[in-house]
């Protein structure tokens, strides 16, 4: 009972008392080997697809090249964060702690590209 509870909450046994809060019970059991190797296979296949796209001149020159690579990269990012970092299964607070700064950082990146991306200055 205690073992299953500890694995559910990812806390040591000594934290059992604290772990019975409603929030802590939002955490779920982590996946096992059968999920992990499938995730690894998907990540490998996506990477192979990205590199393949790079070496197809007609596709690399097309308008769809950059959006496709960005989508595939974002997909890999999300898969690793959700399944390997267990954000899909862990407490909501961890999601907030990660996605909050990531959102701010992404907005900053887009803002900087809008501010300086149009300048055509050659340096060095």
């Amino acid at each position, binding site marked *: 009972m205690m*073992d299953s509870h500890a*694995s559910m909450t*990812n*806390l*040591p*046994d*000594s*934290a*059992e*008392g604290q772990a019975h*809060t409603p*929030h*802590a019970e939002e955490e779920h059991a*982590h996946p096992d*080997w059968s999920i*992990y190797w499938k*995730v*690894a296979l998907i*990540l*490998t296949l996506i*990477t192979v697809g*990205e*590199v393949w*796209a*790079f070496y197809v001149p007609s596709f*690399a020159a097309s308008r769809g*090249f*950059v959006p496709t*690579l*960005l989508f*595939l*990269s974002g997909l*890999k*990012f999300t898969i*690793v*964060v959700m399944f*390997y*970092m267990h954000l899909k299964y862990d*407490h909501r*607070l*961890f999601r907030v*702690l*990660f996605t*909050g*700064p*990531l959102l*701010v*950082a*992404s907005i*900053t*990146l887009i803002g*900087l*590209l809008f501010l*300086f*991306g149009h300048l*055509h*200055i*050659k*340096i*060095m």
Partner: protein
Amino acid sequence: MSASATHTSAPASHHYTTLGLDSRKVAIWAFIGSECMLFVSLISTYLIYKGRSIVGPFPHETWTDPATGHVFKPILNIPVTSASTFVLLMSSLFMVLALAAVQNKEKPKHTRGERVLGNSKLWLWMTASAGATFLGFQAFEFTSFVHEGLSIRTNLFGSSFFTLTGFHGAHVTAGVIWLVTLLAIDYRRGLGSKDSLLVDIAALYWHFVDVIWIVIFTLVYLIK
């Protein structure tokens, strides 16, 4: 379990938030959030300076030095970097298996497969080795770039590229050292399910290093 038993068995170093979460895990997620900011600033710098160097070598284009007539080939080696990317992706698989092995240490293992999957030393060693291999690839890449005429002082591409990938490499190095210390603990006294949080925190850092490389590989190496 009684309150007194809980109190006596709880190590003094464990601190839990009012949500019942270990403060160390909250801290590592907050740290990862701040690291997102750091890497996005470096990636932004790279993207803003992309294509603005007036002298080569360039990442994807051939460049002829007007002074010497020397022709510089595109500097990025996609096959080598693809191999290092694959190694880092596999290291993430090894890391989750190491964590699962530590979490399930006390469970009985009947088959050979269960014993292999439950061997935390094996998976920690594999993760650290994969990290070290990735660093070897990066050292090879940096060395070959310098031999081909691109250093951190050559042009804007060199400055932003070496800063971005160098910072990432430093993070991988810290991760490998962290994993080796966990491996040393495992050999010395054995990591059990009580230590799963220690491995979980290291794993979160390691996967973060992996996801950052996923972004760098696409933005720096594949998008021309």
